[in-house]
Structures are given as structure tokens and as C-alpha cells.
């Protein structure tokens, strides 16, 4: 029997189910790229202004590590640098969510069996999902290229940019298709796919951040790094597209190979039996929350400690970035010499760490909504557990998790940097303080999540939009010269830039009080509202 029968029908079904979801993804990502290019045209029209901007960027290795180096100071070059890495990571998330949604999730819910009983070949669902996801990447690439050409950017660079995005989509579609074969649960498959994106990002971070220390080759292991290495608008290296296509094909073949060797509904990894009765620690809402949050707390802590260690190990070379730029060196020396540069660097680096830790905090807080929607909250709330205690058991992780994560990654960054310059005892407290000072801003975002959960549960997910807005305000706001009042909307812009700036308590106290108030409002709302279905 032809294993691809019915693929066409499934493509239409997927397109129908995701017409809104995928359109939003593609349009937002295209707008991010084209909009950034258009903003650069308006704000940095002259080559000299762009050169100064590029120098400022190059002087802060925290930014270089996070976003990659600037290869060209043209409008296109700056755009590719600005949205290349962020775009690639978001594209990866789009591809992973779409693929898992239409492959493993369909199997887990049993809808796949419903389809399997009709005239649908064994490989049709995987094939249809791959075609739709890769197709979305192509549409995105065409929109980006067309938009950039429309703005008057060079055609080869625009095409390379579009193809680069399409290539990233294809790679992560293939890898996610592979992940979908491994586990029985969609949640675990999604976790594996997202972890692969995270690993790609981190490899590139270590590579681009550690070029000076000879770690540049790490970027070549990362599909996200390939986009940077394709160098749109900076003498494009077309053969690198072959790497994306190659890995996409390899992963896809691997997915088909595994799919042919397992039953529908089963995974390659067989679930093992667990304990027949619960350990004494599993007898309270907090014990349950610990079991549920433990894996993600470990994963995020590990990932962020890695980011911290990269930031710590490249801090020593900060001065080196300025070597051939006397103008900038002079500016920084006025700010307090080489020490001043490193301090500014750590302030930026810890700000970025804090944003990633906030993503963990938001995810943990939204666990409340996940439990509520899956009706699992009903089972707990029908016992003698009061509502506040149930909510508190999950919020402990949203509130204290980022503290743990930032403390550990701050200590690691400080210790590694300290060991480079022979001053561990001196640097650990400095960097740790720079990390911990971010926490009130993280808590404000947690507060927004809890307030939404309590007052408007159906809108809980909107907190992700708020976080992305804060992220873009912080990352793009200054370069794109947004008005100050809009930058002030983000709690992160009120955090003193330690260790470069003075420690002032007022903003910290105000942010913490705001966070407490938001959480209190959210919990009061939850006490009064229906537990929704």
C-alpha cells in the first residue's frame, strides 16, 4: 500500500486548522525583519552613523555573543545581524510547535487512529506536516526577501536572507519530525524539539562569544549559527545553504526510518513502569508541584548556568574588542578604564540572563492555567487543599526558581571571570549582585501572569506578548530610538545597571511592591472566580 495516500487531504486539514496560527507566526516574523530594516533606513541613513553603531555593538561582547557579530554596516547587514539570531530561534519554535501539533499530538489524542482507519497512508501525516511547515518557511522567506527588495536593499542579500530563514525552518521541521518519533507523549516530544533549538542557540552563543578564545568553530555546529554564517548582505556564502538542506533531509529521512519501525501511538523510547505507591514526600500540593516543576527547573538552571559560564569566560577579552578602535577606547576609559568596560558588559549580560530566566518564571506561573484547563486542578481542589495553597504550591517555583537560576549562573559567571583574572573572591559577589538585582523586574512579569490568571484566565497566555514586548523594548528600543516613556514601560529598564551604575534601592522597592500587589490582585481574583473548564 502506498504509504503517502491521503497526504493532500491532510495538507488541507492542517492548513485549515492552522490558517490563523501560522499566518500570525509568518506575518509577525516577516514584519520583524522588514520593519527592522525600514527602521534602520529611517534612523541611520548615513554610513558614518551606522559605523558608530556597529562599533558600539562590537565593543560589548555580551551583545556579540547574544546576537552574533556585525559583518557589514550596510542597512541589510545591520538588519541581518539584528534579527538573524532572534528570528532563527523564533522560527525554530514555530516549526517545532507546528510539527509536534500535527504528528505526535494527533497520535497521543487518538485522532491519528481515527484518520488511520480511513484511506490515509502510514507516512502521510508526517509528510503533510513537513510540507506545511516547510511551506510556511518558504512563504516567510519570500515575504522577507520581497519586503527588503521593496525597501531598496540589494537583491542577492535579500534573497540570501529569505532563503536563510526558509533553511532554518526546514532544519527544525525535520528535527522536530524526528523528535516526534521518539516519545509517546507530545509534551516530551515538544520538550526535545525545544531543547534542540536551545542547544543550537547556546552552541552559537559559545562560538560567537568565544571567537577570541578559539571557540569559533562551535557556531558551525548550530543551525542557528548557519544563518549568521550565510552572511546575507556581507558577501553571501551561498554553499552554507547546503548545510541546512542537508541536515533537513537527513533528519527527515531519520524520522521516516524510525516511523517505519514503530507502532502508531508508540514511541521509540518505551515508557518504564514507576513506583506502585507514592513516596512520603508526595503527599501535599507542594510535593506534587515539586514533581511537576522539577524537570523544567533542572533543565533551565543547567541551560542558564551554561550561558553564565560563556559570559564569564569571554568577559576577560572585553578589552580586546576595543583594541583597534581608539575612539571607543577613549570613551570607555573616561567611564572608568578597562574595568568600566567590563562592568558595562556584565550589566548587559545579566540583563539578558534575567530575560531568559523570566521566560522560565512565566512558564511556571502559567502552569496554574495548564492545570486548570486540563481539569487536573479539579482533582486537587476537591481534596482539602485550599485554593491559595494550590496556587502557592506552583507560584513558589515561579517566584523562587528565577532567584535560584540567576544566583547560580551569576556565581558561575563571576567565578569563571575571577579565575581568569586571578580574583575569584572579588568578582563573584560583584557579578552575583548584578544578577540578583534583576529579580524585582522578573517578579513584576510573574505578577502580570498571576493577575491575568486571577482576573482574566482566558487571556493568561497574553503575558508572553508582554514579555516579548519588554524584550524588544530593551533590545531594540535604544537602537531604533523609541521615545523614553515607551522604554520606561519595561520593568527591566528601571533596574540599576550594576556593576557599572550605583545601587539605588528606590526602583527595586517600587518594582517589588508592584509585583507583590499584582500577585495579590491575581490571587484575590482567583479566590472569587469559578474554576473554569
Amino acid at each position: 500500500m502506498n504509504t503517502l495516500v491521503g497526504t493532500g487531504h491532510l495538507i488541507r486539514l492542517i492548513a485549515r486548522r492552522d490558517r490563523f496560527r501560522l499566518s500570525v507566526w509568518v506575518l509577525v516574523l516577516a514584519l520583524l525583519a522588514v520593519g527592522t530594516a525600514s527602521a534602520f533606513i529611517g534612523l541611520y541613513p548615513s554610513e558614518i552613523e551606522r559605523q558608530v553603531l556597529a562599533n558600539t555593538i562590537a565593543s560589548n561582547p555580551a551583545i556579540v555573543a547574544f546576537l552574533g557579530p556585525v559583518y557589514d554596516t550596510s542597512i541589510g547587514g545591520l538588519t541581518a545581524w539584528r534579527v538573524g539570531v532572534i528570528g532563527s530561534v523564533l522560527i525554530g519554535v514555530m516549526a517545532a510547535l507546528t510539527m509536534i501539533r500535527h504528528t505526535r499530538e494527533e497520535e497521543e489524542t487518538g485522532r491519528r487512529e481515527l484518520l488511520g482507519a480511513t484511506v490515509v497512508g502510514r507516512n502521510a501525516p508526517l509528510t503533510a506536516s513537513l510540507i506545511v511547515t516547510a511551506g510556511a518557511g518558504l512563504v516567510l522567506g519570500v515575504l522577507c526577501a520581497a519586503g527588503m527588495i521593496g525597501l531598496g536593499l540589494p537583491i542577492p542579500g535579500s534573497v540570501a536572507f529569505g532563503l536563510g530563514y526558509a533553511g532554518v525552518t526546514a532544519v527544525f521541521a525535520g528535527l522536530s519530525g524526528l523528535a516526534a518519533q521518539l516519545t509517546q507523549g507530545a509534551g516530551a516530544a515538544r520538550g526535545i524539539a525545544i531543547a534542540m533549538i536551545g542547544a543550537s542557540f547556546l552552541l552559537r552563543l559559545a562560538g560567537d562569544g568565544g571567537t577570541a578564545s578559539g571557540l569559533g568553530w562551535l557556531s558551525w555546529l548550530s543551525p542557528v549559527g548557519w544563518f549568521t554564517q550565510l552572511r546575507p548582505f556581507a558577501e553571501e556564502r551561498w554553499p552554507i545553504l547546503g548545510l541546512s538542506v542537508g541536515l533537513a533531509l537527513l533528519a527527515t529521512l531519520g524520522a521516516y526510518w524510525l516511523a517505519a519501525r514503530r507502532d502508531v501511538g508508540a514511541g521509540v523510547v518505551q515508557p518504564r513502569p514507576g513506583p506502585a505507591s507514592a513516596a512520603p514526600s508526595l503527599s501535599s500540593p507542594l510535593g506534587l508541584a515539586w514533581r511537576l516543576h522539577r524537570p523544567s527547573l533542572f533543565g533551565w538552571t543547567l541551560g542558564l548556568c551554561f550561558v553564565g559560564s560563556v559570559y564569564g569566560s569571554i568577559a576577560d577579552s572585553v578589552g580586546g574588542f576595543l583594541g583597534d578602535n581608539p575612539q571607543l577606547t577613549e570613551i570607555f576609559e573616561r567611564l572608568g578604564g578597562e574595568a568600566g568596560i567590563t562592568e558595562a558588559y556584565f550589566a548587559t549580560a545579566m540583563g539578558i540572563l534575567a530575560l531568559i530566566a523570566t521566560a522560565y518564571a512565566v512558564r511556571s506561573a502559567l502552569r496554574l492555567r495548564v492545570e486548570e484547563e486540563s481539569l487536573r486542578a479539579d482533582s486537587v481542589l476537591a481534596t482539602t487543599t485550599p485554593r491559595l495553597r494550590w496556587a502557592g504550591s506552583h507560584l513558589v517555583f515561579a517566584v523562587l526558581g528565577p532567584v535560584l537560576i540567576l544566583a547560580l549562573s551569576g556565581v558561575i559567571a563571576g567565578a569563571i571571570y575571577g579565575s581568569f583574572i586571578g580574583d575569584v573572591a572579588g568578582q563573584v559577589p560583584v557579578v552575583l549582585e548584578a544578577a540578583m538585582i534583576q529579580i524585582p523586574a522578573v517578579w513584576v512579569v510573574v505578577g502580570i501572569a498571576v493577575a491575568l490568571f486571577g482576573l482574566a484566565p482566558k487571556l493568561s497566555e497574553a503575558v508572553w506578548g508582554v514579555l516579548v514586548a519588554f524584550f524588544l523594548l530593551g533590545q531594540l528600543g535604544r537602537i531604533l530610538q523609541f521615545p523614553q516613556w515607551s522604554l520606561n514601560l519595561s520593568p527591566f529598564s528601571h533596574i540599576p545597571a550594576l556593576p557599572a551604575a550605583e545601587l539605588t534601592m528606590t526602583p527595586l522597592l517600587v518594582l517589588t511592591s508592584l509585583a507583590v500587589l499584582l500577585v495579590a490582585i491575581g490571587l484575590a481574583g482567583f479566590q472569587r472566580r469559578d474554576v473554569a473548564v
Partner: protein
Amino acid sequence: MTAVISTSGLTKRYGQTIGLDGLDLEVAEGEVHGFLGPNGSGKTTTIRILLGLIRADDGEVTLFGRDPWREATDLHRRLAYVPGDVTFWPNLTGGEVIDLLGRMRGGLDVSKRDALLERFDLDPRKKGRTYSKGNRQKVALVAALASNVELLILDEPTAGLDPLMEAEFRACIREGQNDGRTVLLASHILAEVEALGDRVSIVRAGRTVESGTLDELRHLTRTTISAQVTSDPTGLTEIRGVHDLRINDHRVELEVDSDQISEVMTHLTRLGLVSLASHPPTLEELFMRHYRDVVEA
């Protein structure tokens, strides 16, 4: 007898749609109360109000004589709940879920738990995701039945169970009743309620349409009679309380209101009875009578 559950005029709206429209429900101590209605008639909404998960817009509701919304935590010490749509945490085993829920309810009877696992033939070492629907249902049932509570609230508890397990479930409920437990059994499976229920409430579109013991309800309804007579039976149309009369030569089939049975029987005897069969209304017929217009619509 004191009421364990008492609601009157219970109303709940979800935006434009009406979930409950003045529902009355009385469950006395020690009885198994069948709570019958088709999908979407308001059974689950009522149960979630009783559990204090949602608040009624209007009407009175008491659980053990107290307010389930304000005193939810205290009241939950005395009850166990089996949800209609059982989902558990994918990375916890069935045994862990049973223990966890039992402990959070204030303790569970370990020997009872083990006996129930045996009776329901349930492997407690499997993870939540790998259980079939029926087995997830069994996890929830064991978790509820293993605790020594006064009240069991069961929302379609046998959906997904095979007939053997269903029989085991009935036996467990009867044993629980002998121990003095009160049971609210929401269901649309009539045979189950007929087998277990002391009293029955039938809901439709968020409103109680019938309530009482099975005998009382039967009294309110019609008995089906089929008979073969020797004379012309057309005279039957004259008798009050006869419905759905079908005459085929000398064969007669009819339904009769319960208070008119003796008159119909007298008439049939006069016509010269050859054979006679009659049966009281089943819950099924009761149910169908209340829903027929919905089904036809």
C-alpha cells in the same frame, strides 16, 4: 433523615448560555441517589457547584448543611470525587496518584487501597499517559473508594469500564452503602441507576423534571399492556388514560396511566382475554418520555 445535599432553585449562567435553570436536588444520608440526564443537562455543573469549584448565580445550596463555596476545604474532608473526564499528570504512576489524592484528602486506608487494586485488576506502576481510558477511570475510582469518607460524588464513573469491572463497581457501591455512605451517582446509563439507585432525580436543560424513588416515579407513569381478546376491542378508545392504542384485528397494544389500570383490566376481561402481558415502565421509558420531545426536535 437529614439531607446531605440540598439545592433549590440553583441557577448558573455561562455568558449567554444557561447551565442550570433552577435545579432542585435533595440527597438524604445513606442513600444512593441517581442523578440522571443526557450530556449537557447540567449534571457536571451541579457537581462543580457542590465542590465549591464554581459559584451558583442564584438559589440555595448546602452540603452537610453548610455552604460549599465558603467552607469548601472543611467539607472536602468528608467527601471523595470521581470526575467524569479523568486526566492525571503524565509523569506520575497510578499508584502515586491514588496515594497523593488520598493523603491530600486527609488519609487513605492502605489495606482498602490494596484490596481495591486487586478487585479492579489495576497495575499501579504505569504512568498516567500509558493508561487507557478505562484504566484512568479505575485509578480515580480506587482513589475515591479507598478513603473512609461519608459522601461519594461520582460523575459518570463507569464510562470506559468493561462489564466485569462495572459489576465490581456496583458491588463496591453496595458495600459502601452498607457502611452508611451516601452516594451521588451522576449518570446517563439507566441500567446502572436502576440497579443501584434508591432515589432518582432526572434533569433536563438545567432543571429537575422528576424526583423520587423508582416506585414513585413508576407510579406517575404508564404501564405497557399487550393482549389478545376475542371480541372487537375498539371500545378501548373510550377509556380515559389510555395512550398509544394500537389495534390489529384482535391484538391490542396500549399504554395506560397507572391510576387507570384496573378500569382497563376490567374492560379487557369483558372482551374475553386469550393472552395478556404487561410490564411496568422501565427507567428507560421514563427517561425517554421526558426527553422524547428533545429527541424528536
